[in-house]
């Protein structure tokens, strides 16, 4: 049967266009139930034993995904109408609904009612599209009732009017709440149902109106106020309608951009808008006007008078100890909400925010106010946190509670729960449903619980969710793509491969590394030159484009390394065995072979797939020991020495060209093998062997980058590192002025030279500190598709290389997989998949890689931070620290031994109140003008773990009074610092790392006088269990 | 030799495989493609017992064949011959000597626009078709210029039908009721002449309708027209 769908559309030019599309109706669409005799057996999805079948409407799909995702909700019929509407209105919800429908674990059946001969309906005259769709869903429900008479079919809809009509048509219809109550077998369902916003269709079955203002904690304590006030107080300004916003932006009255919250408060924000030219500061609860971090908002600039008032309010805050809240009356009420300003004295602590604009009263900042929200970016995965401690209500009763997110840049969330007592002391996940203008807090609903607060596994889970890292096990479809173990090379693997099994190949990795993706060899050639080979695990031999495994790997994009755990990008058999270039076994590789002169000049290069057999899988320490042991003259050791000498030449040459030697204070944890608790933290040692491997990998990456770009100028995946803006160098220059060295950042070469010159006689660690600071000035290195930007932007600043890419770690990075495919295609080994030829699609996946890479780094750092906390929890340690920066509000110190950094409290005994913090001179002065500390000075600090509101823990650093300073300890500390210092100039860790830093900076950018954790761990190299190659992540 | 329609054929249909021995006589609409004979246009596939195979199609355009009697319009006048439009892809040539008793001295005086009834003497595909206005023995036999009357066009298949025996019903019915002269060219030109112009007009209007009328219908139509005349 054929229907023509016709509608009229307005064209860009303003003309009116009639669009006619065909619409075929079919008779081969089945009900998906085995109870239906006419249903095709292949379409069976709904269980015959189900208590009832549910049919959902669009509102449910849009707003109640958590309810639908709950395992207790099953045997659901999703009409095609719902999917289509959902796709048009909210693609995130659509993706989730689709995932449910395709999941084999759930019984969600898609009924294409729009294409079914008996359920297709045409809009009646004067019927709105919405009403028509509602009717279509009702017709579909009625069809199910007729088709399967023995089974109850329930229509779930939030729309009371729709329910009324359904009942009139003889269809049983329920709201989610009513249905959840019906399900006595699963009481949790009631909580999982999202809150119906007043703005939406009213729900006559909701027995509790959720109103943040009315049911806020204070009023619960004083029930005499009554649960509801007769008249709702308007707390926030209404958002402008979209049309007005668009017009305002067009006219230049409003500015549009993503809003970023300060790391310490949900009511301190910055909006970066191109139209405004610089970041607009949004200050205070009212001005932020219900925007959440990441939303795209429209901002109106404040007049100077308004701005002054706002600044004044901000300035008042610290005295009140109350808040980032412009509402005096609210602030007092919310004081115990755990809003993050209580430790506002512990001011800005991270050095991340090098371009931090201080929020000082009366500063000339552009202030603004959110007037409209263009796009919400609420996390669908939810926010981790815990219920705020309140007096528990009656058991099992539904009660309204406040939820305190782990991240302080999100506000408290009001939610309704029946299981308050089971949830207290637990970390839970909550999703935001809405935020009305008369509600102090956003309203959300419970999704699931993670575990006990403070438990290491729970907190690890939290940091993984917060960084959006997928920890779910690989699906059966993914595992089906993995060849069975034990695996060995088959005849069919050989064609097109060179036999390198006899070559003296070895790998050098961190100790305990299981995913070895690179190996090296060198051997003399008759001509007096050397053949140098870099062999990379041939992951793409197993990872075919378009397979479920490929899609999963592309989505994950990177392996995430936590201190005690590794979250793999590829299934374990591939990661640890089949692809891993382990010693003594034959493995498939993708090799880059150079002919080099003894002076490390490449004469020629070629690429080939190969079969290798690594002679030895060494750790850095083992490799170093072999090279240093003069008695050894075996093939491998001689080769390592040769490689090392060549690497040194290449390295020197690189620095000559302006590559930066930067430093980052890596530490590693020593773990208790039983409890997996950290026993010690130590500075990570960088050896020549590390640098040798790094140098060879850099060379391979650069060589491959050049090759793939020549072959695929439009769709190569490269990695660029932008030149930092001059203002980013400002803190470094300031430190230089104070400490007496010059920083010239006109070029990377000039910067490298001035960093080399920044020495202080007798202070071996000084140069390293300067380099650590320089690291913070760098931008984030990014993947990009060569077709999407100009060749002038391909440059890699930190490496001073015109081209760079990632080729050497395909087991743990998807970018390398893409590059492997490009290289293989350029050599005509395997054709390039269609998806890889599209420059725009590649840019999108590069965006995902950048985001995942960043998230993985953040998670790794958060994990290190967590372990630092665990480490310090059991100990009170006094250690040497260096002053890294003096800010108007305090000093920031860095503890080299533990790689921690933060604002240090100055004890009363040192006369904290009277000290003067001179930012210009980077010095702390006594009132009489004598200097106590200046930048880079050594101090002693004591680290303790403190718990703040919302069960957030942080590390507190307290200065130890100089007068009680033990000179012998000082000497000890100095000695400890020396080994690191020896290698310091060479301790090049990567701009990427640095870049990660700067990314963090942009997140925290401008965090004012209060900051989340008073300690941010710089970087931690995780211990053996998850040994990794982060230092090579350039 | 009675044409016996076997079936309806579409282009590309395989008719017969070439036999090992024996003879197949191929007519219009049949084409040899490798070892097969295929039809090359839609129509009725006809065979005779003598092994002749052809496709009787209905088409508007005429492809000349030797021996066909055609009606043509003089379009050109040269010293040696006339150019005649016979509804074929090409203009046919009619030699001035191709008339009964014509000599170099006494040549027929035809003008551009005159209608002639002629016989195709050459219809090779590489040269223009040639006509002559005599029968094989050189007699006039009704060929030559046609004066007066009116001509109309029809499909070639209908023209063939008008020429066939027994006469189609419409023609015999008209012949019974009215008096007129008729010349049918296989090229789809038909000339009607009658002493009374009304008769000529009636015949030219009625005859083409007869292509798709059954015998009874044709008789009815003629009856109605004739009765309306009186």
């Amino acid at each position, binding site marked *: 049967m054929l229907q023509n769908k016709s509608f009229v559309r307005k064209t860009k030019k303003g003309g009116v266009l009639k669009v006619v599309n065909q619409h075929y109706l079919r008779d081969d669409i089945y009900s998906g139930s085995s109870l239906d005799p006419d249903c095709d057996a292949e379409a069976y999805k709904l269980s015959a034993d189900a208590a009832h079948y549910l049919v959902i409407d669009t509102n449910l799909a849009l707003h109640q995904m958590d309810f639908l995702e709950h395992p207790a909700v099953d045997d659901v019929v999703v009409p095609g109408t719902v999917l289509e509407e959902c796709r048009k209105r909210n693609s995130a919800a659509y993706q989730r609904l689709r995932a449910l429908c395709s999941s084999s674990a759930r019984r969600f059946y898609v009924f294409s009612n729009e294409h079914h001969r008996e359920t297709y309906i045409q809009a009646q005259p004067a019927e709105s599209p919405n009403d028509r769709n509602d009717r279509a869903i009702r017709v579909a429900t009625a069809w199910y009732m007729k088709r399967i008479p023995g089974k109850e079919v329930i229509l779930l809809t939030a729309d009371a009017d729709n329910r009324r009509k359904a009942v009139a048509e003889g269809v049983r219809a329920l709201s989610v709440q009513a249905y959840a109550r019906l399900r006595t077998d699963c009481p949790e369902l009631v909580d999982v149902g999202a809150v119906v916003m007043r703005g939406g269709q009213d729900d006559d079955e909701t027995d509790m109106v959720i109103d943040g203002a009315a049911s806020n904690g204070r009023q619960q304590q004083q029930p005499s106020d009554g649960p509801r006030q007769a008249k709702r107080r308007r707390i926030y300004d209404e958002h402008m309608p979209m049309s007005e916003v668009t017009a305002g932006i067009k006219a230049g009255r409003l500015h549009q951009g993503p809003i970023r919250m300060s790391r310490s408060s949900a009511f301190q924000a910055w909006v970066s808008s191109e139209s405004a030219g610089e970041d607009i500061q949004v200050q205070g609860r009212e001005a932020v006007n219900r925007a959440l971090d990441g939303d795209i908002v429209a901002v109106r600039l404040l007049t100077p008078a308004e701005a002054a008032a706002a600044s004044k309010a901000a300035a008042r805050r610290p005295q009140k100890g109350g808040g980032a809240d412009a509402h005096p009356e609210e602030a007092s009420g919310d004081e115990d909400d755990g809003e993050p300003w209580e430790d506002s004295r512990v001011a800005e602590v991270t050095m991340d925010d090098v371009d931090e604009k201080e929020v000082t009263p009366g500063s000339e900042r552009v202030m603004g106010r959110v007037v409209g929200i263009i796009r919400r970016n609420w996390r669908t995965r939810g926010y981790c946190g815990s219920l705020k401690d309140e007096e528990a209500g009656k058991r099992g009763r539904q009660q309204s509670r406040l939820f305190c997110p782990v991240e302080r840049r999100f506000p408290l969330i009001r939610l309704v729960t029946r299981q308050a007592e089971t949830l207290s002391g637990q970390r839970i996940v909550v999703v935001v449903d809405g935020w009305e203008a008369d509600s102090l807090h956003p309203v959300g609903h419970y999704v699931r619980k993670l575990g006990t607060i403070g438990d290491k596994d729970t907190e690890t889970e939290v940091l993984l969710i917060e960084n959006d890292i997928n920890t779910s096990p690989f699906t059966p479809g993914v595992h089906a793509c993995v060849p069975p173990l034990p695996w060995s090379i088959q005849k069919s693997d050989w064609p097109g491969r060179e036999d390198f099994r006899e070559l003296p190949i070895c790998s050098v990795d961190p100790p305990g590394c299981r995913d070895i993706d690179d190996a090296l060899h060198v051997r003399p050639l008759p001509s007096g030159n050397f053949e140098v080979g870099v062999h990379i695990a041939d992951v793409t031999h197993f990872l075919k484009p378009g397979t479920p495994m490929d899609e999963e790997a592309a989505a994950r994009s990177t392996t995430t390394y936590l201190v005690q755990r590794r979250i793999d990008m590829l299934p374990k058999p591939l990661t640890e065995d089949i692809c891993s270039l382990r010693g003594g076994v034959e493995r498939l590789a993708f090799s880059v072979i150079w002919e080099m002169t003894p002076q490390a000049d490449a004469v020629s290069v070629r690429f080939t797939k190969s079969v290798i057999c690594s002679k030895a899988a060494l750790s850095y320490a083992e490799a170093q020991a072999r090279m240093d042991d003069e008695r050894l003259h075996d093939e491998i050791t001689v080769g390592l020495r040769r490689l090392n000498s060549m690497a040194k030449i290449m390295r020197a040459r690189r620095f000559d060209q302006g590559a930066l030697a930067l430093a980052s204070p890596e530490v590693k944890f020593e773990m208790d093998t039983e409890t997996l608790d950290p026993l010690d933290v130590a500075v990570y040692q960088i050896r020549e062997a590390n640098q040798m491997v790094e140098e060879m990998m850099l060379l391979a990456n650069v060589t491959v980058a050049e090759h793939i770009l020549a072959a695929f100028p439009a769709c190569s995946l490269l990695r660029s590192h932008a030149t930092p803006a001059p203002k980013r160098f400002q803190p470094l220059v300031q430190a230089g002025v104070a400490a007496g060295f010059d920083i010239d950042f006109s070029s990377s070469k000039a910067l490298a030279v001035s960093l080399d010159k920044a020495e202080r006689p007798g202070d071996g660690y000084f140069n390293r500190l300067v380099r650590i600071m320089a690291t913070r000035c760098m931008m984030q290195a990014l993947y990009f598709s060569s077709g999407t930007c100009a060749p002038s932007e391909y440059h890699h600043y930190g490496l001073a290389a015109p081209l760079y890419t990632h080729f050497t770690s395909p087991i743990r990075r998807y970018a390398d997989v893409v590059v492997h495919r490009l290289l293989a295609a350029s050599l005509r080994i395997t054709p390039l998949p269609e998806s890889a030829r599209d420059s725009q699609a590649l840019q999108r996946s590069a965006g995902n890689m950048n985001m995942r890479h960043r998230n993985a780094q953040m998670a790794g750092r958060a994990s290190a931070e967590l372990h630092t906390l665990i480490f310090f929890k059991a100990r009170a340690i006094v250690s040497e620290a260096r002053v890294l920066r003096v800010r108007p509000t305090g000093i920031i110190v860095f503890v080299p031994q533990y790689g921690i950094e933060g604002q240090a409290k100055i004890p009363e005994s040192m006369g904290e109140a009277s000290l003067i913090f001179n930012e210009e001179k980077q010095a702390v002065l006594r009132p009489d003008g004598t200097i106590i500390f200046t930048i880079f000075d050594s101090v002693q600090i004591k680290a303790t773990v403190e718990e703040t509101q919302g069960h957030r823990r942080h590390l507190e650093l307290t200065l130890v009074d100089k007068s009680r300073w033990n000179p012998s300890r000082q000497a000890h500390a100095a000695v400890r610092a020396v080994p690191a210092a020896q290698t310091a100039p060479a301790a090049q860790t990567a701009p990427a790392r640095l870049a990660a830093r700067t990314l963090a900076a942009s997140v925290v950018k401008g965090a004012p006088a209060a900051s989340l954790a008073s300690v941010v761990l710089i970087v931690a190299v995780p211990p053996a269990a998850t040994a990794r190659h982060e230092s090579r992540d350039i | 030799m009675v044409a016996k329609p076997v079936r309806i054929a579409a282009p590309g249909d395989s008719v017969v495989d070439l036999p090992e021995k024996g003879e197949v006589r191929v007519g219009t609409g049949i084409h040899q493609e490798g070892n097969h004979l295929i039809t090359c246009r839609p129509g009725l596939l006809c065979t005779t017992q003598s092994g002749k195979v052809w496709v009787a199609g*209905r088409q508007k355009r005429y492809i000349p064949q030797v021996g066909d009697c055609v009606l043509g319009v003089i379009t050109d006048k040269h010293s040696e011959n006339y150019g005649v439009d016979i509804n074929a892809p090409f*203009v046919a040539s009619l030699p001035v000597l191709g008339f009964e008793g014509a000599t170099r001295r006494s040549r027929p005086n035809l003008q551009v626009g005159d209608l002639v009834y002629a016989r195709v003497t050459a219809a090779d595909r590489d040269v223009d078709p040639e006509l002559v206005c005599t029968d094989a023995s050189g007699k006039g036999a009704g060929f030559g210029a046609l004066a007066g009357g009116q001509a109309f066009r029809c499909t070639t298949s209908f023209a063939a039908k008008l020429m066939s025996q027994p006469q189609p019903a419409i023609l015999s019915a008209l012949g019974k009721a009215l008096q007129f002269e008729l010349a049918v060219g296989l090229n789809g030109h038909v000339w009607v002449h009658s002493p009374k112009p009304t008769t000529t007009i009636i015949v030219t209007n009625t005859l083409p309708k007869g292509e798709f009328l059954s015998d009874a219908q044709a008789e009815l139509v003629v009856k109605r027209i004739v009765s309306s005349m009186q």
Partner: protein
Amino acid sequence: MEYVNPEGLRQDGRRPKELRQLGCELGVLAKAAGSATFEMGNTKVLAAVYGPHEASNRSAAASGATVHCDYAMAPFSTGERRKQGRTDRRSTEISAVIRNTLEQTIITELLPNSQIDIHVQVLQADGGTRCACINAALLALAEAGIPLRDMVAACAAGYLDETALLDLNYIEDSGGGPDISVALHPQFDRVVLLQMDNRLPLETFETVVELAIKGCKAVASYMRGQLLEHTRMLASARGFDKL
């Protein structure tokens, strides 16, 4: 844009390997030697054949008839009224494609020194016009009784959402994926036209072409049926009602 949903239905409700509804009519113009309309879904084209008549360039047609083809989109054929532009590159290209396909089909050597004019007009465009034009032109040629080696049927297939799709409509056509037009002599299984304006991996290409060929066969059998029906209708009207 989702061109094939996980239920295996396309936007208009077809499955990936289904054609749109076909329709055709023969002998729609009295003056032309042969004429036909052809519909594939909402795409409707009109073809008229004039000739064979004397070639305007006889030397070029010495060995066989020349085929002239003229493709045009009616101004009202698309949603937005288009300006009458006869000589745009697309029309020229499609004209050449149709001519080329039909030249291989007409037994031109039977008609030396002559010329066949084919005019194809798109009355309504909804994707796959070039295939519909070839089909319409073929029917018009058959109706004109011009000797043909075989029927020709054309059909397009594309590749979107990692699925090979038969007979793309306009929405799918503008999806940016590859679009392969194939014309086939069904009796001889001879591909006479294969056109693609995109890149496609070889394996995918083969499956898509395979699908297009299947589509062509389906179209051919439909066209053949209609042609036979038309002939039968004419024959029975002329009294051959025994067939």
